[in-house]
């Protein structure tokens, strides 16, 4: 808790950073983003594969950023960075997990799933699934929430 360290560049957190690390982190993230953008715009991979590739790209980018840009490791003087990372994990699970859950429940009740798949894959359009109105418990369309 000392205020003695007048020179902020002397802080251990700052000492850890090197311009090489920053550039590398930046380059890797930028490269992965370009790859993902290219794959999406060129439609060169089937939808499921695309999802997988993009997820992998995103995963690698996250790791690169955590390591090169945020310098998160589990050493003693980086304890608060680690705390922040650990805090982030439940939030990540909550937001993604609960969103996934609520929307899968929503689709169960409101979506004609064949329409959904036809968006990404026109070929499926022909084979119509049961109509929305045939589903048990389906009332009117969801009202525009909030």
């Amino acid at each position: 808790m000392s205020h003695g360290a007048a020179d902020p560049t002397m802080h251990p957190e700052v000492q850890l950073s090197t311009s090489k690390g920053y550039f590398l982190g930046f380059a890797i993230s930028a490269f992965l983003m370009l790859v993902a953008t290219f794959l999406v715009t060129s439609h060169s991979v089937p939808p499921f594969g695309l999802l997988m590739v993009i997820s992998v790209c995103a995963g690698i980018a996250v790791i690169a950023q955590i390591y090169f840009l945020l310098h998160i490791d589990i050493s003693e003087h980086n304890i608060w960075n680690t705390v922040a990372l650990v805090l982030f994990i439940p939030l990540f699970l909550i937001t993604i997990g609960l969103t996934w859950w609520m929307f899968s429940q929503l689709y169960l009740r409101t979506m004609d799933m064949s329409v959904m798949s036809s968006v990404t894959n026109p070929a499926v359009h022909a084979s119509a699934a049961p109509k929305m109105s045939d589903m048990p418990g389906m009332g009117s369309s969801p009202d525009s929430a909030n």
Partner: protein
Amino acid sequence: MLVDLPGGWSPLLGRLAWSQIPYANPILAPLFVAVVIGAIILLGLITYYGKWTYLWKEWLTTVDHKKLGVMYIIIGLVMLFRGFIDGLMIRTQQVWAVGPHSTGVFGSLHGYLTPFHFGQVYSAHGLIMILLAATPLLVGFMNIIVPIQVGARDMAYPYLNALGLWITAAAAALIMISLFVGDFAHNGWFEYAPIFELQYSPGVGVDYWIWTLQLVALGTTLGGINILATVIKMRAPGMTWGKLPIFVWASLSANVIALTSFPALQVALALVAADRYLGAHFFTAGMGGNLMLYTNLFWIWGHPEVYFVILPAFGMMSEIFPTFSEKPLFGYITMVLASMAIAGVSWLVWLHHFFTMGAGPYVNTAFSVATMLVGIPTGVKVFNWAFTMYRGRLTFNAAMLWAIGALFLLLIGGMTGMMLAIPAINYMVHNSVFVVAHFHSMLLVIVYAIFGSVLYWFPKVFGFKLDEFWAKTMFWLFSAGTALVFVPMYMLGFMGMTRRLEYVFNTSWQSYLDVMELGIVVYTLSVLAFFILLYVSIRDHAKNRVGADAWGTSRSLEWMTHSPVPFYNFAVLPHVNERDELAWRRQHGIDQVRPAHYDDIHMPNNTGVAIIMGGLTFVLGFALTWRIWWLCIVSLLAIILLMIIRSFKGDPGYIITGAELQRMEEEAYRREAQIADSHHSHPVSGGVVGNAMAYQRNDSSK
């Protein structure tokens, strides 16, 4: 271009054209003239009195957390006033436009605002009140108080602090300029998909909304990082986590929320921008887009945000109650745990804003239960405050009145929140004015806590107290206004009046709307009382000077340094022995000790970079709104360049010598000695009294 822009576009001016200036509007045009004249008078006065250098040196380039905090609060109060005028306009439209026989003026069929204009007014009202009034006010208080309460000389990152302020100011400027150049969003403060898509909202309103919010989010995140780092790294010697003042705990929990939740908003906004600028389909009704995904993303941020604004207000109440009950806060540990619990649970409840989406019984039940869980820690807090007052020696001054008012509103807002958290009830009253009344009760808790804090901490910052009579007058007028506006609003909500009506079809609601209009008139009187309060207090300031401990019963560290607080906060950092350090020292008779010896201290330099950067972000926001691409590129490059230059330059800071410090301190003590009721302090040698340590010792013990 990637999207079909309706209307014209030119490479030089983007979508900007003379026709975008509403000079024919009977409300805006006179207002514009008034604003211009006011601005000219203000600038003229500054020039006449030769205050430009003072302004630039002392305020615009400052990195002093107290001055930045004061500027945050000024921005907040100005925007609170603007938002209040919007509220007045909404109430007046609704009381006027009731039933088919109501008259209309200014081109409106009923009332005086066209639906499009009315939509802009309530959208701006909501956005301004939550993000540009409440948030800057709270951030301002955290900025001023947290560093002093933890016994630091400034924030962890003084320059970043200034940057946060000026980016927030840029956001405020952007939404203000939307009054006179183009128009603002008209779809509500949180917007809806897909109506905010370019096809349905072709104007620049939604774009103003995107970039204003984006800037506030950025500014607030930077502020949040700073406060977290300050609390974690800059605490005075001896201040362990268990001795942290309660307001600091509240700020800590609030800023954990800010840091984690604002990115969700920024992502949501970026995706909206992608839709509107690049022709993407994240939130469209077709093409793989999903409109509810927007609502989902928005409230992932939106609910944590409401706790981001209420937690500091809880912290303020937790400071005011003990001081004016002359007792320590009841249940410190449970208070801390409750704050943290609220912060945690606030992440689990966001679906309660769209129960009616129809995600089904499992999802709705889960989120309903999670929402009700928030009531437990909130209840703990309410009881703690009640027990703090129980058998205390209560002083009902104005600050205490505001805090007690906040407590009552919290009960009302909390109870109605619980009702809303029950899906079966929610389906009945969702998007009715009942919801509006609920969250106004809650947001008024914040307003009450803020006015309480203005009274409570004003003497600390400026060295004199505000006038009690006018402060109490304002309180009672404000509370009468609150009752008159919001009791009928709850009732109308139950009767099924939906929110945001620019035309009220049901004539039997007229009398309720009349009462609410009366309420807003009373509110207006309280605003008047506030201006008189400021005037009278400043006029009589010489009579109301205070010493270090303005209330005589204060408990925490900020009351141990002079009032007004010197720019270095503490000449010698205090050593913290107990949780309520000042109360403890008073009890042990060492509250009047003075350091015997002053060491050199190190302070950060002022910088003009922050305000320039703020100006550039404003230009960037404006250019993005109007799609002036060359200006976007220029301002963005300038921002990046400036950032790089500043990073390489850094700030070596400067040294205040011990002798200089001693001179300033002695002057401050002399000034204090002239105040009638202040006691005289005497120096102690070596910073040690008895066997208690009063000051940080640089010589040996560290």
